[in-house]
């Protein structure tokens, strides 16, 4: 037991652990930030998984063609946005069920990515690590937060940007209004479904960046199983965070930490069962959701479609 505790200490005091937690959690945070906006507007956007994968794939293809990480990230945005546009227009213009659309979109992206990957077989490479002077010298968290590949740093401005959009602009006020009380918002002249579509698209853009970041800033190769359900963990992170920006970020990094912990254990020579550890983030998410869901107030109209004149 003492040996095990010592190993735990080893893991939790090693900077590499936190570096990998930031990478894994950062990936989740891209998706979760966007998902937060979509949910604030009243949509549980499960196509975030598809947006991530689409962003990863289009990002890889663009990188393969142009050899430019910037263009790869832009293409990732486009990929994520396309999936979001399908989701938004099907569920908030045509009023098809948002879960049905999201799920089908995920299957579609998975199939397309697999099919096209076989044809194009794009190659990717990890972007360069850039250490930010001074900041990266802070012990423990310095290298983890400021010694990463440069696409990681895109996340940092997106956090205040999302906060500003949601809480300091008219648009954000309207987004929150259509998520809380669509009828009232409608009466006061807000196009409810338009705001919801826009919120989903914002989520798609962020998930697209996240997907491209996964390939170009983290793994370095594309694989159809690369996202592998982590979009759903991002949704869970939004629940975990109680629909508050800080909480959502905390959730993302906690789940990232759990994932990093799983990866760090065997490296340090401690064999715990790999399968059970791989299930850990999902189990943790479920437990957390069970424990806290009712304590925070979710957007009142979450997952309820708005059709004028009905209820």
């Amino acid at each position: 037991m003492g040996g095990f505790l010592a190993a735990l200490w080893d893991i939790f005091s090693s900077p590499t652990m936190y570096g990998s937690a930031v990478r894994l959690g950062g990936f989740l945070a891209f998706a979760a930030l966007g998902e937060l906006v979509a949910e604030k507007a009243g949509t549980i956007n499960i196509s975030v998984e598809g947006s991530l994968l689409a962003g990863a794939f289009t990002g890889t293809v663009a990188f393969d063609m142009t050899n430019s990480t910037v263009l790869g990230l832009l293409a990732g945005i486009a990929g994520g946005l396309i999936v979001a546009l399908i989701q938004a227009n099907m569920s908030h213009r045509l009023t098809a069920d948002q879960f049905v659309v999201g799920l089908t979109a995920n299957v579609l992206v998975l199939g397309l990515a697999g099919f096209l990957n076989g044809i194009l077989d794009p190659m990717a490479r990890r972007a360069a690590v850039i250490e930010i002077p001074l900041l990266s010298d802070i012990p423990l968290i310095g290298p983890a937060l400021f010694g990463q590949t440069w696409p990681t740093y895109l996340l940092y401005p997106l956090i205040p940007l999302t906060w500003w959009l949601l809480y300091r602009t008219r648009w954000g006020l309207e987004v929150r209004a259509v998520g809380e009380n669509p009828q009232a918002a409608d009466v006061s002249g807000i196009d409810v479904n338009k705001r919801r579509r826009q919120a989903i698209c914002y989520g798609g853009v962020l998930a697209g960046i996240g997907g491209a970041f996964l390939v170009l800033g983290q793994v370095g190769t594309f694989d159809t199983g690369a996202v592998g359900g982590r979009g759903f963990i991002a949704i869970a992170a939004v629940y975990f965070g109680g629909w508050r920006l800080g909480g959502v970020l905390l959730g993302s990094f906690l789940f990232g930490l759990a994932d990093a912990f799983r990866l760090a254990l065997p490296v340090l020579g401690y064999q715990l069962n790999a399968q059970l550890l791989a299930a850990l983030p999902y189990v943790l998410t479920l437990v957390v959701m069970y424990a806290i869901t009712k304590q925070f107030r979710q957007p009142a109209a979450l997952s309820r479609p708005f059709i004028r004149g009905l209820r």
Partner: protein
Amino acid sequence: MTSRTRSLPSLSARNRSGMEMAVLYVLSLGGAVLISGALVALTGNSWLRVFGALMDGAFLAPGRWGETLVVAAPMLLVALGMVIGVKAGFFNIGQEGQLLMGAMAMAWVGTRLSGPGPVLLIGGLALAVVAGGGWAGVAAVMRFRRGVPEVISTLLLVFVALQVSGFAVTTDWLLRDLDQNRPSRAVASAALPDNIHLPVIRIFGNEFNIGIILALLLAGLVAFGLVRTVWGFRLRMLGHNPNVAQKVGVASTRTGAAALCLSGGLAGLAGAVMLAGGSSGFRVTSGFAQNFGWQGLLVALLARSRPLAAIPMAILFAALRTGSGFLAATGVDRKIVDVVQALLVLALLIPPAIQFIRQRRRALAQAGEE
């Protein structure tokens, strides 16, 4: 009475809207087929050859339609579970995991218990229902005790189930093959003994197990149960309007939880039917589910949650799946079939949605005139 006659559209108007629907369906399905065709063309293949290969693989080549029926059975079972959930207003999308739990239960009964074959077979199927239902039951508990949406919990449980299966087949006291001599024992359970396989029917050189018959019977039962029994009525009421259901005394928690568990139970049964029907050589592996859960889910969506309509849709999806096995000869990746399936579902979502919006607009315009 006058208001009643006014709210009914005239006969010609109904014909017109019927025509509209037909045109919309043709357009959107045509669009889906066109996109699929374009993707095939992208690989430099003729879509006619691809279509021919799909037909050969699904029906025409010797022994293939029997194979298609074998594949259709678990898909139909999963779809029926989905239908029950949707009718009660719950969106259980964790069938992939529930199916895996069912298959593991069947494997455990088949390889670790001893007894007469038929008893073990039926016992295994029953335990599979319990296992799948229990896995969905976790989501039901979370939903009804703490308000955690079942959409998310069932999804997350899929990934837990995947890891649990990986753990089970590598653990001696669970499902790991105890035969030391088999080289691949690290990744798969022992095979089910011969006397626990589902009985096989042979017609015209085609072989299929009785899984499809079981699934068809259950489809009839679900269709009957939803429409003609008090329980089905309560369930549908809960799905239509939970507030009304509550007011007329439907025990929403009990009915809803039962619907969710039943929905998972049918997915579990699907897993057991796959295993006892010879999938993966009668062995559970961690990749055992092979997307059957997701595809069964799409079948239910395609059937618009009608149990009997799920039958042809399950056969269609099964045909695409078995047909895809013959695609290798044409040089087109079989993953094209996944794309076609998703496009079909998306295409079929569009016409009813458009019609719904038009009706709303007409109703609002009418309300404005009066």
